């Protein structure tokens, strides 16, 4: 009984809406080096992102952006220090549990080629629910099917209905990126991580994309980490992180090494 109550409390904490003052990202004494590298690629004393915040991470190539994203997504774990996402310490989890955690809590959007070429648009979006029970459960709680939610998101993201059942190969890059956002958002994960999602877009598509991304992230209550080397986008975001300033690993003598890693 006691165990049950304890478990349900944890579930509640994990599944429930994040309150504003709750940390979505909490990094402490973090240090990470890629395999076969003697020098760390990323060293962060402390960093915290509150739930619902939209963070713009910028800096030149080689400042550790990709490394930070890999750590946040749980693809790699730090050699020392702590990393908590949505209240869950992920550095202690097994690789399989981290993959599971990523499926449940994090939506990722890459620079380009986010979609599986052999699935149609809708299937690409709902695929995220196939790999995450939590996302599927979130939708079920709201009483919508994965397919309906995918359709809702796609129309909110201004993707013409005629394209929904088509191969993703028929879409423009801008359309593909919006489909990727729909997939990242479906089932309302806690955190959306976007890695240079606009760099392949022209100015008009970029602005439209940013607006839609902001609106939908807000709507689903997810937090956003947006990585770019283009600091002109800065203005769209609540918080800015100049990574070279935070990353203590970037002292002069290791900069060359960092560049090799990126």
């Amino acid at each position, binding site marked *: 009984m006691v165990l049950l109550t304890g478990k349900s409390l944890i579930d509640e904490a994990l599944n429930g809406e994040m309150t504003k003052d709750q940390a979505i990202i909490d990094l402490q004494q973090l240090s990470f080096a890629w395999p076969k590298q003697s020098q760390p690629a990323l060293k962060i004393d402390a960093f915290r992102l509150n739930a619902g915040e939209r963070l713009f991470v910028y800096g030149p190539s080689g400042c550790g952006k990709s490394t930070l994203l890999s750590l946040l*997504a749980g693809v790699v774990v730090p050699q020392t220090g702590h990393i908590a996402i949505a209240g869950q310490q992920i550095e202690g989890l097994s690789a399989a549990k981290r993959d599971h955690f990523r499926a449940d809590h994090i939506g990722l959007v890459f620079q380009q080629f986010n979609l599986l070429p052999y699935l149609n648009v809708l299937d690409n979006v709902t695929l995220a629910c196939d790999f995450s029970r939590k996302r599927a459960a979130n939708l079920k709680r709201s009483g919508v099917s994965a397919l309906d939610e995918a359709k809702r998101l796609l129309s909110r993201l201004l993707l013409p209905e005629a394209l929904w059942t088509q191969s993703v190969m028929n879409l423009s890059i801008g359309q593909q990126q919006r489909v990727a956002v729909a997939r990242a958002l479906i089932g309302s994960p806690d955190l959306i991580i976007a890695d240079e999602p606009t760099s392949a877009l022209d100015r008009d598509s970029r602005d439209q994309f940013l607006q839609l991304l902001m609106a939908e992230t807000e709507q689903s209550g997810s937090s956003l980490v947006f990585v770019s080397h283009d600091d002109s986008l800065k203005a769209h975001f609540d918080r800015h992180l100049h990574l070279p300033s935070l990353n203590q690993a970037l002292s002069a003598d290791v900069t060359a090494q960092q560049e090799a890693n990126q």
Partner: protein
Amino acid sequence: MTLNLPTLLRLSFKSLLNRRLTVFLSVLTIAFSVALLLTVERVRTEARTSFNQTISGTDLIVGAPSGDIQLLLYSVFQLGNASANMSWKAAQEISAMPEVAWTLPLALGDSHKGYRVMGTDAAYFDLYKYGRKQPLSFASGEPFADLYQAVIGDEVAQKLGYQVGDKLVIAHGMGKHSFKEHDDKPFTLVGVLERTGTPVDRSVLVSLQSIEAIHIGWGKPALSDIRARFAEKQGSTAQPDAEVLQPEAITALLVGVKKKTQLFKVQRRINEGGQGLKVVSEPLQAVMPAVALQQLWKLVGVAENALLVVAGFVVISGLVGLMSVILTGLNERRREIAILRAIGARPMQVMLLLVAEAFILTLLGLLLGAGIFYLLLLVAAPWVYEIWGIWLPVTGFSLTELKLLSIIAFAGLLVGLWPGIRAYRISLAEGLSVRL
């Protein structure tokens, strides 16, 4: 934590469908190799069954000394020709041996439209056994009882459309368009045998005396010929008398012994013919059909195994081809792996995706291969039967065939394992990186 197999299978399937053209070719390669393997195995086992079932109940086959296998082949299987005959006198001597229960003379060498004509006794229809000691039975008509009467096997009747009462002309020698026909002495068809699945189906059976009778006037003048010509000169149109029709030589003699324990004794005595005990007055050879068959399998076994090994290697090369197609595709699919990893697929799931692909393709290959195999059976069976007398039945898979198929299916899983492990390593090493 579940591996989410239904989703993985669905993804595998859709991914394959997307690459259907490239993938179809490797499936086709596997299908043909599987069909080849199944065919070799089926022909091998059916040839054995068919040979093993051709003769039963006969204890010894006796003929002029040649080789055990040769004697068996030309006397019972109608393959090849006798190098020499045995004398009628020797046959009678063997008949007279106290241990011998029965003998059946066989005289070969003539044909009718490509089918062998076999001169024997009417007792043949009671004494010759095939399969599990089954005797021959008549579909219509009855055994020959007189000169110029013939009984034909099922296939002869089917192919030539003969019925009881029809006339047929026997030719000297073999071949469909035999050069010399004994057309002055047509035979009357008196009986058609039921199908046996043995060379009997392809035989025209006549009495030994009939064979003698049509050869009167052929070849060197024998005593019987002179007598017959004498009879003809006397204006007699009656049939030659029995004495004249006693054959001088036959091709082989089937022997049944009274007691199985005496079999070796009889065999030894016949083999010692012309010397030592002098039971038989000329050198002869007696073989036990089962022993000769064993020798035949030993000989043929090498070729059989060689064929199986070759077919096996063709299957292996098909699977290696499949593996190379998947491995080659893997490089272009690093992006796909990164996407799957990003939405939470574990490296193990990425690996399973590729194993599933290889497995699905192998199964498709097996399915298509089985289809090709049965099609081949349907098309080639009558042709194989006509040439080698081996009937290939269109039946379900034998246990051995199922075993072969399961081994290939399992190999399909293994084939997927290597690309799978590569994909596993790629997923670990590259993580979510978008490098191309």
